[in-house]
């Protein structure tokens, strides 16, 4: 919109922001619905109009995209969208390149550096990490692709629980980091098929070093004088793994699905010839072999979103995962119960499968398997709340 332009009537901004107003060049009159998705009106009610949500991490993101010929380049400076007792606030920066040589081929190279802001004097964690990902897709959006990634990153244990931005806010505000971490450095290659927009099948092979990291002492708004919960030791070693994953998603919205369902499942088989295991009570597991160690692990996540009426939803979920075969699982693949996400009626790590009397300041998750079922009924209390901006008069 050119400077000085005037809009008469209502404004609907779909998928963006309206920065107009006095002093911003363009002027507008009437009401506006800002940052909304377009929708339909039925019987006087909006049926599909939703707020366009931005994650908390996006609020601290600066990026610039420009095109040179067929190459689109994005320069990015952002956070890791979390805050934790290992890295503090990770700062992520780097370029991404997209190249589409023809209609059927899409190529992407994404290079990211990671600056870990929490001070650390131990040799178990570097101040810098990285991730370089390459990806080629053929016959998109239905076809197949190959990808690869080299990385040095801090990875979470039990990542199926709370989203990492909520983990970050809990840690930053309350000094409660409800996740454990380990250092992962390696390379992974993947081959994937997407015969439809709903279905994706992926196979991958990975070689990586997995090592223990210590909790540091990043600042927190409250309880800053307290000591952070220790980060558990893991079974260090070089691991080779192969995995197969299937995702089938028929949801009409990833953020607020009204109907349909989704499922994801994966099987991972890992091996190691130099694992340095943590000593655990025999009630949890027998000593694992330091050579020719192997395990198989399953993850299953089934969801169903049912629209009962215009205002009511019934959502169902089944999550199951854990040991499937081979030797006992390494510490970094084990599970627990409790916490705000899956079973919030129980405190964090209410059940870790540790035997009575086992002293563990990290309170590590030690269970072999876990299964969760959830049924949730949702009812819309209010169709919408619209907060009007103040009316301003200008002579």
């Amino acid at each position, binding site marked *: 919109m050119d400077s000085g332009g005037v809009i008469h009537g209502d404004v609907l901004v779909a998928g963006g922001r*309206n920065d107009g*107003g*006095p002093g911003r060049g363009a*002027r*507008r*009159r009437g*009401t*506006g*619905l*800002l*940052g*909304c998705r377009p929708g339909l009106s039925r019987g006087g009610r909006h049926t599909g*109009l*939703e*707020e*366009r*949500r931005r994650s*908390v991490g996006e609020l601290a993101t600066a990026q610039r995209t420009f095109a040179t010929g067929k190459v689109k380049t994005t320069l990015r400076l952002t956070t890791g969208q979390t805050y934790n007792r290992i890295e503090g606030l990770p700062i992520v920066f780097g370029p991404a390149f997209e190249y589409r040589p023809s209609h059927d081929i899409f190529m992407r190279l994404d290079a990211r550096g990671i600056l870990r802001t929490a001070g650390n004097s131990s040799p178990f964690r570097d101040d810098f990490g990285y991730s370089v990902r390459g990806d080629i897709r053929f016959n998109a959006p239905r076809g197949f692709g190959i990808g690869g990634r080299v990385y040095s990153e801090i990875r979470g244990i039990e990542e199926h629980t709370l989203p990492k*931005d*909520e983990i970050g806010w809990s840690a930053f505000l309350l000094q409660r980091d409800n996740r454990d971490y380990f250092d992962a450095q390696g390379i992974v290659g993947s081959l994937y098929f997407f015969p439809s927009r709903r279905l994706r099948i992926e196979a991958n092979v990975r070689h990586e070093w997995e090592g223990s990291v210590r909790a540091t002492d990043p600042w927190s708004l409250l309880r800053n004088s307290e000591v952070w919960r220790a980060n558990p030791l893991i079974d260090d070693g070089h691991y080779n793994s192969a995995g197969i994953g299937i995702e089938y998603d028929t949801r009409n919205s990833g953020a*607020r699905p009204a109907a349909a369902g989704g499922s994801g499942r994966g099987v991972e088989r890992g091996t190691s010839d130099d694992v340095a295991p943590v000593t655990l009570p025999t*009630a949890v597991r027998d000593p694992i072999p330091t050579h020719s160690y192997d395990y198989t692990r399953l993850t299953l996540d089934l*969801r169903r979103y049912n629209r009962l009426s215009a205002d009511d939803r019934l959502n169902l979920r089944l999550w199951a995962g854990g040991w499937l075969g081979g030797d006992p699982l390494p510490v970094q693949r084990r*599970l*627990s*119960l409790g916490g*705000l*996400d*899956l*079973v*919030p*009626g*129980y*405190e964090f790590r209410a059940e870790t*499968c540790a035997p009575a009397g086992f002293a563990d300041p990290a309170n590590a998750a030690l*269970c*072999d*398997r*876990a*299964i969760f*079922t*959830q*049924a*949730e009924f*949702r*009812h*819309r*209390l*209010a*169709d*919408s*709340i*619209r*907060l*009007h*901006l103040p*009316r*301003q*008069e*200008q002579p």
Partner: protein
Amino acid sequence: MSWTGSSALTRCTSSSWETRASPGLTGDGPGRVPNNRIPSLDEWKADLGVGADAGWIGVYLAKAVTDGEPVRFFIRLERRF
């Protein structure tokens, strides 16, 4: 000139849920679940909860019903699932 505007629409939604969970150790022996079956009903833990959310933030109460845990109040920035 004059101008007015309005913020993003926000829906308020109530939710109530029931969760069952069974973490454990596999294999034979006390406190373990054999590899070839799922846990029996008495090996599950359950909770009930209610809450309300406005899309970007929600407040909830949850209570374990299989153990004597206190009622827990918590805030989420995203929907539970």
